């Protein structure tokens, strides 16, 4: 078995600004996605999503052979996005993460917002974009492979970036080791997703949502940008010996941006945000909100009901 194909951050790993910001933004975002998913799926809504979540758990019992006698299993974020659509996939992933946190001690409760953001929102979006853009054309198999691989690598990079930003010391050698593991896991997930989607298309073709034939370059650029941002964020954080300090600098910039928006509240700021801890948390929340808004806008563009 491969060591990890998904990083479930436990409690006690993230610094307070990081988990607080991701809880405050990630969890309400899922509330919005839940409303969208309810509108999109007409039939068998909650039972379908719940049973598909149970399927993802059960599918982990199926061993997929990888080279040299090792085996891996399906992570499932990309498969869910392709079959149910991104909003519903996010809801299913959130339900899975909640059950894993409460029942299986896989991932923390305070860190639930972070895990939901990494796997349930960013991972699903990273899977949906290539599928939506190229899933209908000649490059369908490549698009599905990219969906599986990107969902794993984007969530893993985000998780590592959050750990580094929280000051968990990871030496470059250890980081290189992790990146290799994630790259292998991502490639394996891509191959498995392609094989399983092909199987589903053969057995029950009506289930797989067909991506629209028309391509939108704006989306492609935004998607590529988001993926790059995640990757670069991780690498920048890694090359810096002290992730916390690096994040501090970023938060300072974000804090200044928030000040621009919060000018009427300027005189209260000194009193309310006097403690560096609170202003850090506030700046972090503002930054995450910004990212969240971009995600929502992207998601809205990507999930617009198709005319076909």
């Amino acid at each position: 078995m491969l060591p990890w194909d998904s990083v479930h951050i436990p409690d006690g790993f993230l610094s307070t600004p990081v988990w607080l910001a991701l809880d405050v933004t990630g969890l309400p975002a899922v509330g919005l996605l839940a409303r969208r998913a309810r509108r999109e799926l007409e039939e068998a809504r909650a039972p379908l999503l719940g049973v598909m979540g149970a399927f993802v758990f059960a599918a982990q019992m199926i061993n997929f052979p990888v080279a040299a006698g090792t085996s891996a299993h399906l992570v499932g974020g990309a498969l869910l996005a392709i079959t149910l659509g991104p909003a519903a996939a996010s809801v299913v992933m959130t339900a899975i993460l909640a059950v894993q946190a409460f029942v299986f001690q896989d991932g923390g409760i305070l860190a639930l917002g972070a895990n939901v953001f990494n796997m349930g929102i960013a991972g699903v979006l990273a899977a949906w974009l290539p599928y939506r853009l190229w899933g209908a054309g000649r490059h369908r198999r490549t698009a599905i492979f990219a969906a599986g691989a990107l969902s794993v690598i984007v969530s893993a990079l985000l998780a590592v970036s959050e750990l580094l930003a929280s000051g968990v010391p990871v030496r470059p050698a250890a980081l290189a080791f992790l990146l290799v593991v994630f790259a292998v896991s991502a490639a394996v997930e891509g191959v498995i997703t392609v094989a399983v989607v092909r199987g589903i298309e053969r057995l029950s073709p009506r289930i797989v949502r067909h991506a629209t034939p028309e391509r939108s370059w704006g989306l492609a650029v935004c998607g590529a940008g988001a993926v790059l941002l995640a990757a670069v964020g991780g690498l920048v954080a890694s090359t810096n010996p002290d992730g916390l300090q690096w994040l501090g600098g970023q938060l300072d910039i974000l804090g200044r941006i928030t000040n621009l928006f919060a000018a009427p509240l300027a005189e209260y700021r000194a009193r309310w945000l006097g403690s560096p801890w609170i202003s850090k948390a506030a700046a972090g929340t503002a930054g995450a909100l910004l990212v969240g808004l971009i995600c929502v806008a992207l998601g809205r563009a990507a999930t617009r009901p198709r005319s076909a």
Partner: protein
Amino acid sequence: MHHVVLERWSRGESFLHARDARVKVLVLLVYLVALATTTPMTATAGACYAALVAAAIVAARLPLAGLALRAATVLPFAGTFALFSVLAGDEARALSLVSKSYLSAAAVLTLAGTTPLPKLVRGLESLGVPRFLTLVIQFLYRYLFVISEQAQHMRMAALARGGGSLRLAHAAGAAATLFGRSYARAEGIHGAMLARGFEGRMELLAEARLGPADVLFLLGGAGLATVLRLAMGTLA
């Protein structure tokens, strides 16, 4: 399977089992926040926080050793990053990572071991979690067993037919079959539930009501964790 034991624990009887789910969730959150914000994590602090969880486990009449063993599921992950921290020359951080994640897991287990999942989910719902999400969680948990059993049957069938080591295409076929069957089952479930008057809400036999003991437990539990946190130094 893992959650069979937890399910049995959660149906027990004790002062903690009888408390309202909302109150238990709130006390857990206060405890987790107190633990997460304690820096540096000293041995004294660790012992105090551990004593608090241990007291809750004993009060709930849960097996202390069994629960301690179960909470160890976080150790492979925590241990890896603790090793990275030691390699980077930060032993204090390594200890803090392991102790905080382990104690957090034990605390969450104490909640899950004293609260049946339907009650826990209903509690989360009345604390503001959207009902659609709590419904999905309930269906997921309800069919976790059923679908897993089906996967096991399929595996057995493959073994009986000489499919000990599957090729990728075979494994994918098995996953696709399981997917199709789960999908069809979900539609059947939904139809059957609609026929029985399902209106988008799981009914409990009795609605939870906050009693004086619940309020007392909330004040006591949250108060203890807060006092412990304040005794361990001010906010960093």
